[in-house]
């Protein structure tokens, strides 16, 4: 570090650039090296010369700042303290797209850590310039600017509102149609970070007419595009029944169900949660979810996924679907998921979360279930606290239906 520092002040520009590049690569590799860079007082020198030098140096210096800022919030705070944000924002106005990309990347990494750093980045006036960067023709620059906007808006509703006030949503919505898949990932992630905070923001995102275009992203080859698209739909669906209604009316539930069917593992998780949120709002929406053939898909997820948190999400979603009326409970019970849920609840290997969720799901479905063939297996191997619900349900059914088979089974 002590050897590289004087090289930064060398007369020959190439030596400066290469020294900066070397520093950047060192800092990029390891957090301790980044701390050493900070402690060696190199940052003020870099920031000072950033303003004056040519574009290669600017790129290298922005690379150093990015490499230092990505490791921890304290290092990012050190970068902010030496006044780098203003110079980075000036770099964002440069003509060369490479410089803009490096500056935007550095800003994105700084803003990623927490809300105060994001606020500092916003206060430096970076957001309008980032929105301008998004409109540039270079794909790499668009990607980085979208990812920076996503990192800024994810922390709090005020920051998301700042991003929206600059008119970012319209540009982001246009870029959903772009064929580049990495760009789509970032754009969808940015929109979902904006939409997740409040109903108004979600409504603004919906007003940008992303439906039904977003549904084509659910069919993309890239898994992360699918994941981010289903995250976006989930964040919109969870706020109010009207938004969920909108998504159902445009056929979003069918698209998400197909998407769940076509991928595995963590990619499925946002889609499963989206179905749960839609069904939770009202019984009509839950009926719409059932009509879109989501329940067989969810039970497949429940049985074949290895990870507990995905199973827990699927159990929760099934509980939300089945808890409204006997019709709904019947639709869930017909697919033979209740025994699976019971076994998950009873198994000792399941995590706490999975057990709690499957127990709640079983209870809420059983309270409305009048479908006797599904209830019968429960009589044999359910634990006592569930058994009392089953017996109660049987008595209700017997009184209501007065059917022979029911009475015989009861006795």
């Amino acid at each position, binding site marked *: 570090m002590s050897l590289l520092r004087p090289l930064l002040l060398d*007369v*020959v*520009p*190439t030596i400066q*650039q*290469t020294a900066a*590049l070397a520093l950047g690569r060192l800092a990029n590799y390891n957090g301790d090296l980044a701390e050493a860079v900070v402690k060696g007082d190199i940052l003020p020198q870099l920031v000072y010369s950033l303003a004056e*030098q*040519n*574009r*290669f140096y600017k*790129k*290298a210096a922005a*690379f150093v700042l990015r490499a230092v800022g990505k490791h921890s919030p304290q290092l990012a705070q050190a970068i902010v303290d030496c006044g780098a944000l203003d110079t980075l924002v000036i770099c964002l106005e440069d003509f060369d797209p*490479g410089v803009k*990309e*490096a500056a935007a990347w550095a800003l994105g990494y700084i803003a990623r850590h927490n809300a105060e750093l994001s606020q500092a980045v916003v206060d430096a006036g970076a957001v309008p310039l980032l929105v301008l960067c998004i409109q540039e023709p270079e794909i*790499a620059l668009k990607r980085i600017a979208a990812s920076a906007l996503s990192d800024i808006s994810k922390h709090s509703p005020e920051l998301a509102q700042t991003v929206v006030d600059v008119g970012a949503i319209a540009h982001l919505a246009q870029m959903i149609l772009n064929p580049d898949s990495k760009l789509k990932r970032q754009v969808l992630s940015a929109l979902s970070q904006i939409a997740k905070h409040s109903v108004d923001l979600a409504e603004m995102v919906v007003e940008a007419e992303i439906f*039904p275009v977003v*549904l*084509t992203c*659910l*069919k993309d*080859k890239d898994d992360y595009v699918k994941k981010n698209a289903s995250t976006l739909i989930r964040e919109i669906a969870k706020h109010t029944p009207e938004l969920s209604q909108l998504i*159902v*009316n*445009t*056929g*979003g*539930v*069918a*698209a998400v169900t*197909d998407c769940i069917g076509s991928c595995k593992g963590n990619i499925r998780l946002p889609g499963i949660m989206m179905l749960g949120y839609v069904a939770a709002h009202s019984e*009509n929406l839950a*009926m*719409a979810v059932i*009509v*879109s053939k989501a329940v067989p898909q969810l039970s497949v997820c429940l049985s074949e996924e290895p990870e507990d948190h995905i199973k827990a999400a699927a159990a929760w979603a099934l509980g939300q679907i089945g808890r409204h009326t006997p019709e709904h409970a019947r639709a869930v019970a017909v697919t033979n998921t209740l025994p699976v849920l019971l076994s998950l609840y009873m198994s000792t290997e399941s995590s706490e979360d999975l057990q709690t969720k499957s127990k709640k799901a079983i209870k809420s479905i059983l309270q409305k279930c009048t479908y006797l063939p599904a209830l019968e297996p429960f009589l044999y191997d359910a634990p006592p606290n569930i058994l009392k619900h089953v017996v109660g349900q049987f008595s209700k059914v017997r009184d209501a239906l007065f059917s022979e088979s029911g009475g015989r089974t009861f006795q």
Partner: protein
Amino acid sequence: MATLARLQARSTFLAHQYYFRNSAVDVFRKKEYDAAIKIQSWFRGCRIRAYLSYLHRVATVIQKCWRGYLGRQHYQLIVKLEFCTMKMNLYNAMAVRIQKRWRGYRIRKYCFNYFYLKEYLKAVSETNDAIREELEEFAEMKEREEKKADLEREEKKRDYQARKMHYLLSTKQIPGIYNSPFRKDPDPWELRLQKAKPLRSQRPKVKQKRDVNISNRLACTSARSLPQSEILPPIDRKQCQGPFRDITEVLEQRYKPLEPTLWMAEPINELKMAREELRKQEWMRNINDNMFLPFSSYHKNKKYIPLMHSSSKYGPNSYGSQHFRDENPKKWICDKDFQTVLPSFDLFSKYGKLYSKAGQII
């Protein structure tokens, strides 16, 4: 006196006779009296009994009428009550019918329209199917496009290879490797080679390599660096006769990439040169070479034509442009010039110089 004595003697007999006669009569009288009484009492009894039974009859009649009257009243009350109850029952039944209809209507129309729900669910499932079809089509379209792009790439690659290997084409004398005489048809590569246009030997790509090195490294988002291509010597030909040097050495010398001096490769004033470059490029694009002067320098656009009054044969008069006062030094009181008591305006102190920085080249 005899009578008296006779009477006295008879007196006791008379007394006895009197007593006996009275008593016998008495007995008769008593008997008759008792009989009379019996008859009278029996008669009286009859009469009173008749009267009593009459009274009974009459009392019964009165009671009969009264009881009938009371009973009729009671009966009317009951009838009234029954009638009211019957009416109320009827009203209740009708009201229940109306309420039944109204409640059903209300629920169906305002709270939960079963048929509307069914329609809605049907519409939702139809939309779902439509979306599923569209997405399938979209996915298929993407697949097709990708395949097409792949095929095109393959074509281009083969084309390029054919262009590189064009010398393998068969001539009239010598059949090429793809056109063996033992084959019935020539290999498809032969046809491709026939169609291919040979590449130019000098490739301009080499020059750019050194310049773009660093920026490529930074702009590349992956860790892979660009491969550095070298020029290979041509394949062995027959050695030329004579005192010639080794062909590989010669070609190395000939095709050695230019190594400029440090001054040429990384000039110190690269920034200035880059600015010049930029200015030249912009000059190239300019339609009008005259610099756009701001309005504060508007007067510089025009050539100043002086008044005939203030110009003489030998040029313009200095009065009016150089000095504005007609000075007669003989009339001066003292030889010092006027003092400025008030400071001049900052604005006017820049008279003659530009007020704005527009047009100044950085």
